[in-house]
């Protein structure tokens, strides 16, 4: 049955599947994450919000990230509160492809997508689920610390332009209804922006839950600046072009290409080449939202930002 924005997705207790895509993560960081997630699951059980919590790992690493012994250790941390699945992809599916593959095997009411090194606060699951008590909410997003994402949100309702899947919850029914992430277009970045906009295009709200807190181990340079990795620089440049194309902002595509040509670096040059190749090959995504009801491109961002990082 197709869901309707007039309904609420919340069911109590809900079956929850948490999924993360691994790529070369350290065992220590994964263990830290599981220790906190398991406690959040215990509390969510105790409050009657969830009936079961399953943690599914998809491993995109060249070789397995976790050994059998490590998996056994992780499963032993919360033997009755958290079941752990592990799927070695034997190939790098990226973020979108990895989550799609994991979600395909899911049997739950909600899926909580998060980075494998994210450390959740104890009441995270309850707080994210709580957002769905309001009819029409299709996605709820956690607040990341210590660096809070600068995108704006309504301080009264929590409504926001898009949700980052560093930690976000989606009803599985809606996820499938919308076809999951666009893995054909997006590899590492903007798959969540694109999906959020699809949620909104379908008439649902994306809610930023400031009280749902996760710790995401991001660091600043000694000058206080954001430090993107090389892959972040390349894939975010590529995704910017693809997102603008998909959301029918061809003017933005041309502007980005122009900016890359005049002020770019090796990463933007490579992104430009990839985009042009896809254009020649006819493999660019089919444009949506021709009337620009949802997609937002503001000063290089996909929402208005409260401040600059």
């Amino acid at each position, binding site marked *: 049955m197709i869901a309707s924005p007039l309904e609420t997705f919340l069911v109590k207790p809900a079956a929850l599947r948490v999924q993360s895509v691994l790529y070369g993560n350290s065992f220590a960081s994964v263990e830290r994450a599981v220790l906190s997630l398991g406690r959040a699951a215990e509390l969510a059980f105790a409050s009657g919000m969830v009936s079961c919590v399953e943690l599914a790992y998809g491993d995109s690493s060249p070789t397995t990230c976790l050994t059998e012994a490590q998996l056994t250790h992780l499963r032993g941390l919360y033997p009755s509160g958290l079941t752990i699945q592990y799927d070695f992809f034997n190939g790098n599916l990226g973020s979108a492809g990895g989550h799609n593959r994991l979600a395909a095997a899911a049997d739950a009411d909600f899926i909580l997508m998060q980075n494998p090194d994210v450390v959740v606060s104890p009441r995270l699951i309850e707080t994210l689920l709580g957002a769905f008590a309001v009819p029409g909410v299709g996605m709820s997003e956690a607040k990341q610390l210590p660096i809070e994402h600068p995108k704006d949100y309504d301080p009264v309702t929590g409504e926001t332009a898009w949700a980052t899947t560093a930690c976000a919850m989606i009803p599985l029914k809606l996820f499938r209804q919308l076809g999951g992430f666009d893995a054909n277009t997006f590899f590492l970045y903007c798959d969540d922006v694109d999906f959020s906009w699809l949620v909104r295009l379908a008439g649902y709200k994306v809610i930023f839950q*400031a009280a749902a807190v996760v710790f*995401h*181990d991001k660091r600043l340079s000694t000058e206080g600046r954001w430090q993107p990795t090389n892959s972040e620089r390349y894939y975010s440049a590529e995704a910017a072009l693809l997102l603008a194309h998909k959301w029918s902002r061809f003017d933005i595509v041309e502007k980005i290409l122009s900016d890359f040509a005049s002020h770019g670096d090796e990463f933007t040059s490579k992104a430009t080449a990839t985009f042009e190749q896809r254009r020649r090959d006819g493999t660019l995504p089919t444009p949506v939202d021709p009337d620009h009801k949802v997609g937002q491109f503001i000063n290089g961002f996909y929402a208005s930002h409260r401040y600059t990082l």
Partner: protein
Amino acid sequence: MSTLQKGAAYDNGFAPDNVYGHALELLQRHRVRAEGALHVDVGCGFGRIAEPLVAALGLTYVGCDLDAVGLNSLAGRGFETHRLELADEESIYQALRAIVAGRPVASITIIDTLEHLDDPAATMRALRRIAAEHCAFVLISVPNTTHRDLGFRLLFGQWDYTETGILDHTHRVLFSDTVLRQMLAHSGLHVVAANDVEMTISDQAFPADHPAFQAGTNLHALLGALRNQGDAFGRTNQLVRLCTPGPVEAVQPYVERVDEPRLFLSIVMRTQGKRSDTLAEVMTCLAGQSVADFEVLIVGHKLDVPHQIAVERIIEDLPVWLRDKTRLVRVDLGNRTRLLNVGFAAARGRYIVILDDDDTVFGHWVETFAALSTTAPGQILRTVSAVQTIRRVEYNYAVSLRAESGLETPYPSQFDWFEHLRVNYSPGMTLAFPRGLFHHLNLSFDESLTTTEDWDYLLQTAGLVGVASAPDITAIYRRWVGAESSATVHSVEEWEHNFTSVQAKIDNSALILWPVGTTRRLRIMLDNIGVPERRVAEFEARMEALRQVNNIYLSSTWRLTAPVRLIGRLLGRQPPNPAVAWSLSTQELHDLASALRSSTSWRLGAAMRRIARPR
């Protein structure tokens, strides 16, 4: 030597301010008085306390010693005396039982005797057994070898016995407050009161002309201030303690050294329980630390029941590994500075850091401190904090925080002692203090300060141990918008008062060891004092000289006399060139002005200037 023989050198008279007077005052204070009961003075020597004691307490004085000279003196004054050798516990006990002979005993003194024995604990145990049988007090006095004068001498390699005094050449055991307490605990004697003899200048303050002993020297002030941080016995000449017999503690008469392994970092977090949302946030940041070698002391201030429950719930919610590292310590008295002292006192870590319940930290916060500690052991460890403004939001029945600004970086990457003398550039969570500052140097937070207490503590300690800096940004100091914080709770006047108090304290402190390089920096600063003023004066003098030269060149008489200079040039003379005036020094300009005024042109123009001058 197991026996004690005292000679005439020990015939010290009774005085209210010496050890006899202090001992008697203690006995009087505790109403040691029982008609017909004995007072047994072990190691009595000449027993100069006997007469005042009998007069004050009405007891029967019995003097016991090995030395016949003292006993003869006492006997000659009409007191009962017995020869007593202080050897092993059992023989002492039996000998004393024989001396007492069934009579009631009210009190026992052993003054300036134990330190002469090979095994003073054996004597203590015997005294305890006798005292226990009679419910008697035992008064003990020993010299204090932690008097600061011995420390001053030892620091400079001087250690000398004297005929009598703190380091009497016949002493076998050297006592301090802790040595005495340990031995008493081992012997089953429990201190009920103390009346130590204080003496600022002891018999060990020699040579008197040593700079360490001369009261006017900086060295004396520094050493004295350092000793004061150790314990309260730096000026104590003799430890005088009144004890009662009680249970024997299962401890040796000496300290058994145990270097227990300590966790790395104790995190002291003050809270009023009013910000459970921010407390939950910072605890989540701690759950994400890459190095988990820490404990968390949440110091709750005047928590009412709902707020206490709120804090306890946050702790209970934590994953087990973090919950086990977290303790709630409740404090119902004092101001917010008191919480730091309580938290630091309870801390078990090698380093202690303050983390407010509304701050956040990055994943390498503890890790960066830990790395610094290996490169600069014992120093204060400093990282850097960014600043971000926040405000409270509430929706979907949940209260939380919303960042309102980007991350500012107003604090310098490296610690600068001089700059910190003017203002604090190091928020609390960027400083990890080595535990020894609080636990061994007894440097605590000044509870008279209601704000800036962390700055004050940094100034009081940084000079002693130094500060090791890492430029990494490891925390975010969150500045509130539209909500209560220490910046709003305390008035401007209160902040200013505390600010000036901190500066006054550091200005008067003798406990500052200036970092290497200080003299050079001071010299440069002194050299630069007055430089701007001198440069302005030089500039003004030059401008005045230029103005004078310019006035001459621009004067109408100078222009009217141009033909004279033309003739001069035709005759081969070289009059000054006005165009080069700007390149001349001040002195050269003065010389030029003089030359111009004495020139033929200017002298010819003088008549014209007189004519033109209004009358």
